[in-house]
Every structure is written in C-alpha cells, then in structure tokens.
C-alpha cells in the first residue's frame, strides 16, 4: 500500500508542487492501487525483452549546419548561454 507521504515525496523530487490534494494525491493513489494488479500476473520468472540496435545502424555523428540561431528561440538567454535562476 502506497502512502500519501511517498507520493508527495516523489512529487517534490519531480519538482512538482502539489496544491490540490484531491486532484493529485487521491487520483495518483487510485492509479497506483490499480497497478497492484501486476502482482497477480505471474511474470516473476519472465525475462525482459530488449530491442537491440546495431551501432552500424546509427547515423554518422557529424555536424549538420542549421540556418538559424536556435538560442534565439529561447525566452531567456544571454549571448550563447541559457539564463537560469540562481542555484541556492
């Protein structure tokens, strides 16, 4: 059983401020409770399939010129730097 505190702790780590308890904590709680159905799937011994992509299938790591200055598409920048709030 997931606790409210666990949900709120994760929200904090995800940098999400939870203000409306009913909208977030209660509904997330209901969703996670539903996921408990996975416990009865009987897949403990199942191996997780992975998709492998050969390195030869990757595109070449080469510079492709772009005709616009992407940084100018940001709201906050100075010169070639992104402007960010102060780290405490």
């Amino acid at each position, binding site marked *: 059983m*997931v606790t409210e505190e*666990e*949900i709120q702790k*994760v*929200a904090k*780590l*995800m*940098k*999400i*401020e*939870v203000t*409306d308890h009913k*909208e*977030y904590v209660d*509904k*997330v709680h*209901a*969703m*996670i409770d*539903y*996921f408990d*159905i*996975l*416990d*009865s*799937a009987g*897949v*403990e011994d*199942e*191996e*997780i*399939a992975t*998709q492998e*992509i050969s390195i030869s*299938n*990757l*595109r070449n790591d080469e510079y492709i010129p*772009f005709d*616009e200055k*992407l940084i100018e*598409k*940001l*709201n*906050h920048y100075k010169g070639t730097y*992104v*402007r*960010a*709030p*102060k*780290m*405490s």
Partner: protein
Amino acid sequence: MNLKISALEYVQQVQNGTISAEDFVSTTLDRIKSVDDKLHAFLSVNDDAVNQAKEIDKKIKSGDKVGACFGMPISIKDNMCIKNSTTTCASKMLENFVAPYDATVISKLKQQDAIFIGKANMDEFAMGLTTEFSAYGPSKNPWNTEYIPGGSSGGSAVSVSAFECIASLGSDTGGSVRNPASFCGNVGYKPTYGLISRFGLISYANSIEQIGPLTRTVKDTAFLLNLITGLDPNDNTTVDNHNEDYLGEIEAGIEGKKIGIIKEMIAEGTDPAVMSATKDAISKLESLGATCEEVSLDMVKYSVAAYYTITATEAGSNLARYDNLRYGYDFPVEGYEFNSYIEKARKKFGPEVTRRMILGGFVPSAGQAGKYFLKALKVKSKLTKEIDEAFKKFDLLIAPTVPILPFKIGEKIDDPVSLFLVDINTVTANLTGKPAISVPYAVSNGLPIGIQLLANSMNDKMLLQAAYALEQTVKLPEVPL
C-alpha cells in the same frame, strides 16, 4: 463543392480538372469557419492555405511535376512539428512554441504537395483518450456534440469526420488514433512499430508510440502510408519496408485467412451493441471466406496496468525537459531560486500531465521499480510472446476497437481507473509493436462503433487488405451535422 469525398477521389478530380485545389481548400476553410466553433477540432488554422493551393493549381496548369497529394488539405495533430508554426501539444507549457524544423512525416507530405490545413486538438501531451485534457478545451463528437470524440487524437478524428479536411495524422501510444477513429466513424491506423518515423513528433512514450493516419476509407490510409513510411536516418527505430506498395492489391480479399477472436477483448463489460457489431463483423468475414475461432491472450488482463506504468515512466523522463528554460512560456527567471522556479513553471502543466509525471517518478523509483516498472516490462515481454504464438496459428486477430460506446463529456473525467480501462483493447498492439486498424462498422444510438483488426509485424499490407474487405461489407449513415 462536395467536401465529402475520399483522398483518392480528391486526387482524381483535381487531376482531371473537375475541381481545383484552390476551390477545394477555400471551401474547406469555409467549412471550418462554419462548424469548428461547435466542434473545436482545431487549435490553429493555416491562413496561407489558399495561397499554397493556388501555387499547386499553377503547377498543374503549367504541366510541372506535382506531388501525389495535389494540394489535399490534411490536418495534423498538434504534437508534430511543422517548421515556423506553433506546436502546442495542447499544453499551456508550449503555448508559444514555434517549431524550428519539420517532422519527417511533414517533410514527406510537403514533397507530395499536401496542404496542412490546421493543427488538430488533442489531450495535453497525448495523455488521455477523450480530448477533455486539452488545455484549450475539449473537442466534440460530430455524431453528437454532447459526447467525447475519443482521444488523444480527438481533433484529428473530428476534423475528418466533420469534413474539415480530407485526412489527418495522429499519434497512437495506446490507441490514440484507433480510439477516436472508432468513436467518430473514421478509419484509424497504428502501423508496425518503426514503420513511420517519429522524428519531429513530440515524445510521450517513445518505445511504443507511432504516428498513424485517420481517413475516410481504408484505401486512403494505404495511400498515405505509401507516402510517409520507410527508413529515416533521424529515427533509428525505423524499419525498412522496401517501399512496400500498400494500395496495390488492396482488393485481394481474405479468402482462406485464419482470424483469431481475442477472448479477453470481448469479455464482461463489453457493451451489448459493441458485442453485437463484433459478432456481425466476424460473420461477414466468414462469409468472405475467412475462418474465425477464439484465441486467448492471458496477459491482456494486465496490459492496461503495464501500459500505464511504462508510459508514465517514459513520460516522466520526456517531460523533464519542460523547465521553462529550454522550452516554455514567458515567465522571467529573476528573483527565483532554481527548484522553486521549476516548480512554479511546471504549474502550467494540466492535471492529467501532472499526475502522470508524479506516477512516472514513482513507479520506476528505488524500492518501487521491482513491484511496478520491471513487472510491467515483464508483462510486455510475455504478452509479446503470447501474440507471436497466436500469429503462428492465425493471420489476423479481431476485437472491438473500444469495448464501450462514446460517453458523455465529463462522465468519466474524475475516475482515472475507469478511463484507463477504455484502452483495454488497444494497448496490446502498442506494447507488442504490432499493426492494428479500426474500421468503422456500425452505429448504435447515433454513435459509431469500430472493429479492430491486428496483424503480425510488417504484415501491414495484409492487414489493410482484410480491413478493406471488411469495410466493403458495410455502409454507415452520414454524420448528422
């Protein structure tokens, strides 16, 4: 001007001079003006569309080479980038985001002289199945505007169904093309994973999502697939389809094909009208020479939980980039400490996105991953084995696209688990990478019902042939709009 034509009819009529691209596009824009206040299929409309159509008409008149779309007006779900156009993902977070490049599907359609008539409404960041989670308000079902049109590509489905365009591109992560296609009476296609490039599609759950067409006919879907599929160096999950011609031999029929009826997808809880339509579709397929028998995919029972666990995890990672520094809206950085700034910026996410981000942080976290995320991946693996085993015996699988009829706007919005379960028949194709199509099949109480067919990976052509055969057995009434 008759807007109620298919893509292939449009191409034929423009080619033979019966209609001009300009007239058709202009009339389409008039149609949008007259009905979209009521339906809200579009988040933005291309004001330059008529000029673009005029250019195509000029090329036709002067005998220049013209692309296969001949100025066909197509709507695009607002999570695909069109260079220099606003791409919001129906989120306030990307309210002013102007895409700096074209998605691969957009480049390919531009080369074929398609006209992007507008960007279609959707659930915010494609998280939802009703479009009620669009930050700009829900789309309405043209068959009955009190009802949801499905989602997350709801605007796409509405725009095709209400004759506001000829075809649309949506994206399907757990049924987001097939579900609204079923609810609005369109054909909706989720291709084999990797068949269509995702480059330029704003990511939600990369490992399972695909772009797919919504059209009026199965042939139109095949026509569009011929234009947008294939390898893309910008998306190394794409697969080589060797320029397969999906339209050629589409009338091949299904005689001798073996079709498995997925037992878990016609289980308790299926609406009687949906069940009746499914049984009728099975009878029709049998009368066309197919043999149908039940098949069990035991993992379907756990597929919705696995799907939401996996997608929330990927969404939690994909949406971490929205910190209002690299992408975002106009909110100054001065006077804020870093963490509190990000928290405040993320308040622009709507409630469903916020919930799924919290989930996406929780289910793969230390101490929880074994119980949720890893188990979900194991269910995905086992489900894939089960469906691969089924395809050793059957050519195709069949089930209703959605087990229930469209419901009223607001009816399920406060019950997330009840909403989850609407996806029960569609997520299997995404989790296993298989192609699936929803074919409009019946109307009950004035609302459409779609039938879903699935095929093995890379058997998209055979799937379209079967869908075409099924489509030919029915004629639905016209949208009462």
